[in-house]
C-alpha cells in the first residue's frame, strides 16, 4: 500500500535524492604575511558543493576567486595564512601537511586552468604527463597507464588518441589543449574538479564545445565542480548554484537562476547591467562607477558602498551574509525584486 503513496510524496517534496556533500568551505580567510603584517585577501568565504553539482565562483579580477581556489587546492602562496576549514568528502583537509594533502588531493581533485600552455609541461610528451599521473596516483603499470591514457583522450573527443599521446602540447590547438587538461583532470577518478576560467581564452564556438564536454563529464562521472569565471552568462547556462565575490567577500550566494536573473545585491545587479545583452536595443550601458578597491584599501563597512547608489550611513558597518528572499546576501539594502 505504501508503495503507491510514498514515491508520489517523495517526488513532490524532493524531486532529487539527497546528494552527498563533496566540498565544504567554511569561514575561509586568507591573508598574506608581508613586512607590514597581515594583508587580508579573502575573508569569511563559505559554500559547499554536492556530487554531480557545478557551483560557480563569480567576480571580476582581484575579487579573490582564484586565490580561494588555490587555498582549496593547497597551492596558496607560501606566505599565506589560512583560517577556517575546508572539508573534502567528510575529511578536514585545511590543516593537513602539504605531503598528506598531496596524497589525498592528487586522486580526489582534478584541476583545469585557463591557460593549458602554462599548466601542461612543454617538453614532456602528452602521454608521459598522463601516464606519470596515472602510475603515481593509481599504481598502474606503464602498459596499463598508456591504455588508460588513450581511453581518456578518446573520451574527451580527441581523435587519433594514440598519436596525440606521442605529441607535445604546443602541437595542439587551444581547444584540444583544454581537452587534454580535462582528460588529465578526470584521469584518477576525482570527486571534485576545480576549473579556473577554463574557457575564457577560447573562441566562442570552441568554448561551447568545451563547456558541453565539461557538462557531460560532470553528469557521467557525478562530479562536483567548482567553476571559476567572470562571465555571468556562462554561469546561468552551466552551474546550478553561484557564489558572487567582491573585494574578498562573498556578497551573494544562491541558485544560479536567482543570482543571474534576479540578484539582490547591487553589485551582482550591476555586473549584469554592465554587459551589453543581445537584442535589448540599449544605446547606453549602465556601468558600475569607479573601480574595485585594491587589496589593503578596502572600506571599513560594506566594501561595495563607495560604488553603490543605495549606500547610506548604515553601510559604514559591515553587513553579514544573510538570507533575503531566495538568496543569501551581504547587504543592508538588498534589491527587492527576488524577494
Amino acid at each position, binding site marked *: 500500500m505504501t508503495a503507491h503513496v510514498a514515491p508520489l510524496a517523495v517526488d513532490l517534496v524532493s524531486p532529487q535524492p539527497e546528494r552527498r556533500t563533496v566540498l565544504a568551505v567554511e569561514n575561509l580567510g586568507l591573508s598574506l604575511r608581508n613586512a607590514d603584517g597581515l594583508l587580508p585577501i579573502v575573508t569569511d568565504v563559505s559554500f559547499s558543493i554536492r556530487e554531480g553539482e557545478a557551483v560557480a565562483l563569480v567576480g*571580476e*579580477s582581484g575579487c579573490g576567486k582564484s586565490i580561494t581556489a588555490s587555498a582549496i587546492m593547497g597551492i596558496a602562496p607560501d606566505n599565506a595564512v589560512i583560517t577556517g576549514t575546508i572539508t573534502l568528502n567528510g575529511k578536514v583537509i585545511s590543516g593537513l601537511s602539504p605531503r598528506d594533502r598531496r596524497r589525498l588531493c592528487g586522486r580526489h581533485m582534478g584541476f583545469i586552468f585557463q591557460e593549458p600552455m602554462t599548466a601542461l609541461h612543454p617538453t614532456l610528451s602528452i602521454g608521459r604527463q598522463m601516464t606519470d599521473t596515472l602510475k603515481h596516483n593509481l599504481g598502474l603499470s606503464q602498459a596499463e597507464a598508456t591504455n588508460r591514457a588513450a581511453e581518456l583522450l578518446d573520451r574527451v573527443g580527441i581523435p587519433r588518441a594514440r598519436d596525440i599521446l606521442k605529441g607535445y602540447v604546443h602541437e595542439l*590547438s587551444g*581547444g*584540444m589543449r583544454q581537452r587534454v587538461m580535462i582528460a588529465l583532470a578526470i584521469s584518477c577518478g576525482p570527486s571534485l574538479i576545480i576549473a579556473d576560467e577554463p574557457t575564457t581564452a577560447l*573562441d*566562442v*564556438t*570552441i*568554448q*561551447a*564545445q568545451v*563547456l*558541453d564536454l565539461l*557538462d557531460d563529464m560532470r553528469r557521467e562521472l557525478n562530479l562536483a565542480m567548482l567553476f571559476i569565471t*567572470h*562571465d555571468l*552568462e*556562462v554561469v*546561468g*547556462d*552551466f552551474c546550478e548554484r553561484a557564489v558572487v565575490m567582491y573585494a574578498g567577500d562573498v556578497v551573494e550566494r544562491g541558485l544560479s537562476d536567482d543570482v543571474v536573473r534576479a540578484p539582490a545585491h547591487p553589485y551582482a545587479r*550591476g*555586473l549584469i*547591467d*554592465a*554587459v*551589453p*545583452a*543581445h*537584442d535589448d536595443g*540599449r*544605446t*547606453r*550601458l*549602465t*556601468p*558600475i*562607477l569607479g*573601480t*574595485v578597491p585594491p587589496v589593503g584599501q578596502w572600506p571599513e563597512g560594506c566594501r561595495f558602498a563607495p560604488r553603490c547608489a543605495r549606500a547610506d550611513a548604515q553601510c559604514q558597518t559591515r553587513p553579514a551574509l544573510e538570507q533575503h528572499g531566495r538568496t543569501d546576501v551581504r547587504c543592508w539594502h538588498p534589491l527587492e525584486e527576488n524577494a
Partner: protein
Amino acid sequence: MNTDPVLSVAGLSKSFRAVKAVRDVSFSIPRGKTFGLVGESGSGKSTTARLVLRLVEPTAGTISFRGRDLAGLSSRDLRAERRHMQMIFQDPFGSLNPRMSVRDTLVEPQLVHGIGTPAEQLKTAERLLAEVSLPRTALDRYPHEFSGGQRQRIAIARALATNPEMIVADEPVSALDVSVQAQVLNLMRDLQDRHGTTMLFISHDLRVVQFMCDEIGVMYLGEIIEQGPRDRIYGAPAHPYTQALLASAPGKAGSQRARLKGEIPSAHAVPSGCAFRTRCPHAFERCTTEKPAMRDIGAGQKAACHLLDTAVAA
C-alpha cells in the same frame, strides 16, 4: 553634407608567404558610422585593421580613404594622412609608452602633425582629458599609475588628439573587466556622437559588436562571409557560420547551444570551395567544388553560401 564613404576597401588581400591571412575583403563605411568586423581568432579581422591603416602592405586590393587611394601614397603623404585615422588597441598596457607622461602622450600626436602652438597643444590635452573623464592632475602622471580602464581612456584621448575622421579600434575593451568595459563603451559612443567620428571596430565579442556597430561583417578564415546592418545580422543571420556563432554565445540555454564541430582550419590549408564547409552542418557536394559568391539577399544584407541559391531557386 558629403555622403561619400570615409573608407572604402575593395578586393583587399594579404598573404604572408603561403598563409592567406586576408582574402578579397570589401566594405565601406559611411561618415559617422561604425562598421564592425567580428570573427574568431585567425579569421583575419586584426590583419584587416592593420591593412586599412597600412601598417601592413596589402598583397592586392585598394583602400580608399577620404577619396584617396592609400595604397598609392608615398610614405610621406601616408604619414600626413594618418592624422585623419587613429587607432586604439586591445592592450592598454602595451600601447602607451611607459616613459611618457600623459601630457606628452597627448601632445605628441599634435607635434608630429604640426597642429597648433605649444600653448594650444596643452589646452587640447586638457580638453581631451576632460572628455574622457580623467582629472586634470592626470597630466603629470605616467601610465603605470593608472588602472586598465583609465589607460584605455588615455589611449582614446590620444586617438582623438589629432581630431581624426576615422578611428580603428581593435578589441578595445577585451582586456577590461565587465564593469569597466561598460564605462569605456559608453565613452566611445558618446565621443563618436559628439565628434561624428567614423569607426572601424574589431571584436570577437558578439555582444559588444551589437552594442557598438551600425553595420557588421562576419569573417571566417580571412574572408567576409556575411555582411549587413546590425539588426539583420543578429535578427536574421543567413550564413550557417553566423548562425552558429550567435548560437554558441553564452547566455543561450545550454540545450539549445548549436554545436559546431571541429575547429578553424589552418590558413596554410584553406579548404577548397567554401572555406566553412569542413565545419558546416549543411555542407553538400557543391560546397567542395565551387566557392560560393557573395549574394545580395535584400535589406542591405549579403552572404556567401550555396544554400541561398537553393532557397532563391525553390
